[in-house]
């Protein structure tokens, strides 16, 4: 360490404060700055915040019970539509007079939670296994890839029906099933990009400078390869939310009386002709949530590409 100390004793060649301030803006900050400056990001963020706050607070604050029936106020249309709309039920009521706004927001809670958590689980399992397989190759790769193949060969919906039909479909169980059914795709993608990067010379340089395998993976490869995958995973949140609705529709989701998008649609489908809003509301919320998430994701991706030169 002697040589290191002496070279440090030299006066720092550049101590200009303005320059130092400029340099303190790291690349991550610059991307963040550019992304948050875009209109798409602002709209997306505003929408997400409104939806999240509403889902988190409105059902409790309004004091309306999502399962309370009111037969006199049944099948009321949303505001300003039809004859009998009322301010008490801004999005109308269903066939037994339950408030659609509260029901949808409670449904959004479960749906969003399941969507995000299952994608996070998928990402974690898929990326970890894919990276390990791609980086180490050989026998590790073979084993991981055969597990992946096995998992891929089981259709997601059948797995879900089998597992959730046998056990009680609670929220953790649903997250686990959805998370486990989708990771092979991520493992495959991650494996192939890691394999391509592993052979690059800079990985060799890091190795020669003494970096261990976990360090190379965590400081070099993951920061480089994960962001594009994160962006696609945002789209997967949407897919998972839709899948959760499917399960609910089939009666395999969170059980009634707790409202979910799936069972709301299942209930409303018989009244589609004269009370279209029942089955439409979950879709509307789903659509709003996903659009806003995508706007945020796209803003980040675009900022990343401008800073990194569109590579």
């Amino acid at each position: 360490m002697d040589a290191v100390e002496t070279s440090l004793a030299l006066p720092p060649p550049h101590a200009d404060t303005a320059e130092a301030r400029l340099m303190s803006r790291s690349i991550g900050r610059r991307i963040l700055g550019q992304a948050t400056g875009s209109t798409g990001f602002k709209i997306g963020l505003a929408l997400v915040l409104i939806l999240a706050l509403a889902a988190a607070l409105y059902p409790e604050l309004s004091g309306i019970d999502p399962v309370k029936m009111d037969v006199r106020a049944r099948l009321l249309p949303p505001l300003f539509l039809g004859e009998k709309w009322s301010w008490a039920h801004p999005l109308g009521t269903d066939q037994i007079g339950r408030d659609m706004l509260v029901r949808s927001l409670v449904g959004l809670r479960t749906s969003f939670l399941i969507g995000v958590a299952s994608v996070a689980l998928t990402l974690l399992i898929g990326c970890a296994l894919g990276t390990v397989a791609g980086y180490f190759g050989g026998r590790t790769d073979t084993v991981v890839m055969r597990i992946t193949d096995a998992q891929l060969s089981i259709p997601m919906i059948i797995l879900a029906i089998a597992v959730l039909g046998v056990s009680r479909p609670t929220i953790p169980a649903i997250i686990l099933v959805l998370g486990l059914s989708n990771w092979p795709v991520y493992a495959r993608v991650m494996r192939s990009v890691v394999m391509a990067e592993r052979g690059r010379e800079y990985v060799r340089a890091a190795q020669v400078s003494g970096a261990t395998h976990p360090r190379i993976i965590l400081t070099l490869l993951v920061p480089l390869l994960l962001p594009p995958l994160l962006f696609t995973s945002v789209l997967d949140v949407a897919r998972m939310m839709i899948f959760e609705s499917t399960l609910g529709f089939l009666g395999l989701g969170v059980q009634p009386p707790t409202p979910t998008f799936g069972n709301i649609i299942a209930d409303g489908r018989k009244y589609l002709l004269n009370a279209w809003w029942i089955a439409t509301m979950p879709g509307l919320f789903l659509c709003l949530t996903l659009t806003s998430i995508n706007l945020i994701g796209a803003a980040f991706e675009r900022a990343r590409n401008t800073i990194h030169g569109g590579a």
Partner: protein
Amino acid sequence: MDPVLSVRDLSVALTLPGRQRTLLDGIGFDVAPREIVGVVGASGAGKTVLSRAVVNWIEPPLAIRSGSVSFRGRNLLALPPREMRRLRRDIAYVGANPMGALDPTLPVGRQIVEKLRAVMPEVSPKEAQARVVALLDAVRIPSAASRFHDYPSQFSGGMMQRALIVDAMVSNPALLVADNVTQPLDVTVAAQVIRLMRELTERFDTAILFVSSSLPVAREAASRTLVIDAGKLVEEQATEALIAAPRHAYTRALVAQIPVIWGERPTLPAAPKPAAPVHADAIISLRDVSQTYRVKKRGSFAGTSALRAVRNVTFDIVKGDSFAVVGESGCGKSTLMRLLSRLEHPSGGSVLCEGRDIAGLSGAELLGFRRKLQLVLQDPFNSLPPRTGIGAMLEAPLRTHGWRDPRKIREKVRAVMDDVGLPVSLYDDLPLGLSAGQRQRVNVARAMVLDPEILLMDETLSALDQTEQFKLLALFDKLQRAHGLTYIYISHDLAMVRKACNRIAVMYLGEVVELADNERLFFDPGHPYTRALLSAMPSLEERRYRPEDCLMEGEPPSPIDLPLGCAFRSRCPQAFGPCLDRPPLLSVRGARDLASCHLVPGPGATLAGAA
């Protein structure tokens, strides 16, 4: 004779929204039939743009600003696409990247036939095939008729470049534009390709525009040379006159940068005294090192065969040395590099660092070795992580070695950036906009940041043009003086080695065939392979070794089926009886030098001579 090509006042600009940059500015020259005209310039001078403009291949964002390119009196730039397509049979183009130019999913022969039938639809498929096979044969591709059906991946780099020359020549063009064709090739193969081009001008009356970043290479090929600097034609002269008496200041600088090979060397880079006892303070020693890979046997399901990439290599590198390992591609240089840097363990023998076997190191000792020996890589584009800032890239090794204080790390990185001549303002930039030379500086800085004692240079300079090489060599020299470094160069560029190194090992097919000091190796090579390499080396000086005497045809045999006896005999012009069945041993020549050839007098003879 009327010129086949005449370029007048050609200007090309790069146009992006909001700005414009002139790449070529008022270029004008003529090329006569059967003439080879060289175009020389630094990278970024506009050589590739010029060669593309000549074949009318300028695409947005590039645009022709003014001027004309006349081929047999017709301006190509004004021709309608249909007419231009008809002319493609007379104008051919070969680029620098043979791997990228062929479709990997189609056999090579079929691709060339396809091209021929595209420009000359009147040729029948059968006739086309016969013609391609004949030409493949003419460029000395062994057993051309069966190679015709091989896929590009089955061709070596040199063979692929020759196949592309066939692809260009197959329609008997009147003009061939060769853009840096010899760049990716070994000197011996490059010499073959240049000789082939000369023959073609005589056999088919083709005129060649020979674009190259290296003046010595252009000298090998061209009778007249144009020098381009920053988009302007600065000088045009007969090649010999240009080298002997350059008129323009830029050309003078260019000629001055070419390493002198046979003349007096200006300075030896901090070389130890020749009188220093051998093994005195060897910092790295190889003892009988071998590396064998198991590779899948061709045409079998599970069978493997042994590929002997490195065979019984023994040498010492003394502290302060500039040691070079030279040889053609596939000779085991890169494997040796991986063994030296402990990316792989040898299958036999051992690599010692200051007397300790590096295979046995672990934990703190291994980290200590890692700090001591650093790698500087070849490819300026592959060797830097694309989305990491330069500062962060240089900080990483320090963090690996346990540095924690961000302020100290930053100071150290800035000091090193200053040391290698990188502006500190690049700290937070991505490597994206950097030139190849600057990228290599980042590479050097990444190695230097740990204050190593040994730098392993894996073809570090081969991707750079002459000017950049010159600058980086000066930097290496400076660093060596300042920090007392030991350099190990892995290279195929003998001119660079002559300038920068004091001790040289020549490798052929995994073996060290000659180990000698710089002067001895260049002036009195002990192995015919060394002589062949020297004869193929392009330079601006009078040749010491005539290629006709020592240049071999063909390529090295496969390291899977090593021939019996001397590995070099299939290409050796001096092979005789004992070479057939007895492998030669490294024999002593003088005090410090070794060569493995039956022609070297045995130890007894040396002793007798000494007595």
